[in-house]
């Protein structure tokens, strides 16, 4: 066997940060195939709520399950994207630090942000997977897109974008806290008010007073309404714009916070 050549002088090849991030994204995805927690989280929980609500409320809310599925499915999609992103990078970042993996990466001549970027890139693949699986489950149950294909893609894109922007909150938490369980606890605690306190199961106008007040200000309602309008070909109103504004706010606040604490952390 011949001996492998010595390493090239580090940092001499261009676009290193991108190549290294891609290598680390591949690592993150390879890990997901062996422990698919985030995808399961982004698929199983929403799928359970889909089936549960469909057969519990299908008749009473919309008259028939087919009509109710049209109403319910878009919100479930948003829930799926939200959950898929919620814990993934936030927990990985935390676990890597505790296991000394971050120290090893930081002792290598690569960008300090490459591990974070790699994991976030892999998250995008995980969102796509979760959303695709949910669409398949929806189709099996009888859900059909009524808008244009472009509108359907826009709905999926919007759900994923929102999931991505929210995930920066958990990434920030993952960087700050000592224990990865805190990230999971955060997504668990916020699940009820953020995901269920919305127009998910029924239009906000039909909700009881206090819940209605919350659901109407909850940004997730806006995302669900926007996706619903796009997938069913109904009037979009201001929901897409509001969703995009929320995305920008979350991203602009939490991405820099997370990135800064991550790169400064010693």
């Amino acid at each position: 066997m011949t001996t492998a050549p010595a390493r090239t002088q580090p940092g001499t090849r261009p676009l290193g940060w991108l190549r290294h991030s891609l290598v680390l994204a591949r690592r993150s995805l390879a890990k997901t195939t062996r422990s698919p927690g985030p995808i399961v989280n982004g698929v199983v929980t929403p799928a359970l709520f889909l089936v549960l609500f469909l057969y519990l409320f299908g008749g009473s809310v919309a008259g028939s399950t087919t009509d109710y599925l049209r109403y319910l499915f878009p919100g479930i999609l948003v829930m799926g994207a939200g959950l898929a992103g919620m814990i993934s990078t936030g927990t990985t970042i935390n676990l890597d630090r505790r296991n000394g993996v971050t120290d090893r990466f930081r002792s290598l001549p690569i960008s300090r942000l490459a591990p974070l970027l790699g994991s976030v890139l892999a998250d995008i693949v995980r969102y796509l997977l979760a959303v695709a699986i949910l669409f398949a489950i929806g189709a099996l149950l009888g859900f059909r897109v009524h808008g244009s294909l472009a509108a359907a893609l826009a709905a999926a894109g919007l759900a994923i974008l929102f999931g991505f922007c929210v995930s920066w909150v958990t990434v920030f938490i993952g960087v700050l806290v000592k224990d990865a369980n805190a990230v999971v606890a955060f997504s668990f605690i916020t699940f009820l008010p953020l995901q269920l306190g919305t127009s998910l199961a029924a239009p906000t106008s039909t909700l009881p007073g206090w819940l209605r007040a919350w659901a109407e200000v909850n940004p997730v309602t806006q995302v669900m309404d926007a996706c619903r309008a796009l997938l069913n070909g109904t009037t979009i109103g201001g929901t897409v714009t509001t969703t995009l504004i929320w995305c920008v706010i979350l991203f602009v606040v939490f991405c820099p916070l997370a990135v800064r604490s991550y790169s400064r952390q010693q």
Partner: protein
Amino acid sequence: MSEHGFEAEKLAKRFGKTVALDGVSLAAPRGQVLGLLGPNGAGKTTVIRILATLLRSDRGRASVAGFDVAGQPGQVRGRIALSGQHTSVDEELTGLANLVMIGQLLDMPRRHATQRAAELLARFGLEDAARRPVASYSGGMRRRLDLAASLVGRPEVIFLDEPSVGLDPGKRDELWQLIRGLTAEGVTVLLTTQYLEEADALADGIIVLDHGRVIAAGTPAELKQQVGGRAVVVRLDDPADTEPAAAILASVADRSPERSTRHELVVPVTGDDDFFEITARLREHAIGVTELSLRLPSLDEAFLALTGAPATTTDFTKAA
């Protein structure tokens, strides 16, 4: 090129109110192993993290492979490898995938990375396990893979933070062998340990750290002299032999042995000859032993000798 693998001058570091390092200076010539010895919380990991550019010191300076750690961290990172206190390989990936990934992060083309990974897996006896996920590896195999991961980029300086933690003695000896092999290639090694025995087995020079200060430095031989040499330990087959055995130890070592409750006798000796003399006399008197050894002072005994106080902080929960 600097003649030192690494050197540090008066490093100081605090975490809030905790003084982790308080003026630590150390250096190792290229190709040597420096052992950093100290109890939990002494500041060993902090020294390694500063030298590996992961942490900035509050005061003092350090250079590794001729480059300043604060001024040229990129240059330093291109020449070092770190194997931390925990094995930092990915459980879900195969041994091969772990090493190939490091190679790719070091800008090796995939073919070279795979070739290098195969070389190292062979050298560390992990060929058969190469395509299995690390989750199925034993503790010893993980340690070896972790060490292999640090060698992918042919580093000039390697930092090993308590490399033998959690290994049983057989596996530990195997690891020691591998670490000794590193210096044969001219690699400079900084190794931390809580065991004088380990530092003695591997290091050319030893620095003893306590509460963030260097309390002793020297070659293993010098240090052993300072801390008062070795002791013979005898554990008897038959407790009834305690008196005659104690008499033999007392006459050879010229002082009466300490007795523990487990029929164990311990007596300090000045040299190998005392040990052989004791062995011979025990045989003459047909005294059966379950254990008979010549051992180095424990870290606790060494600390007692060096500081007049026992090694402190056994707070394992705080270990960072």
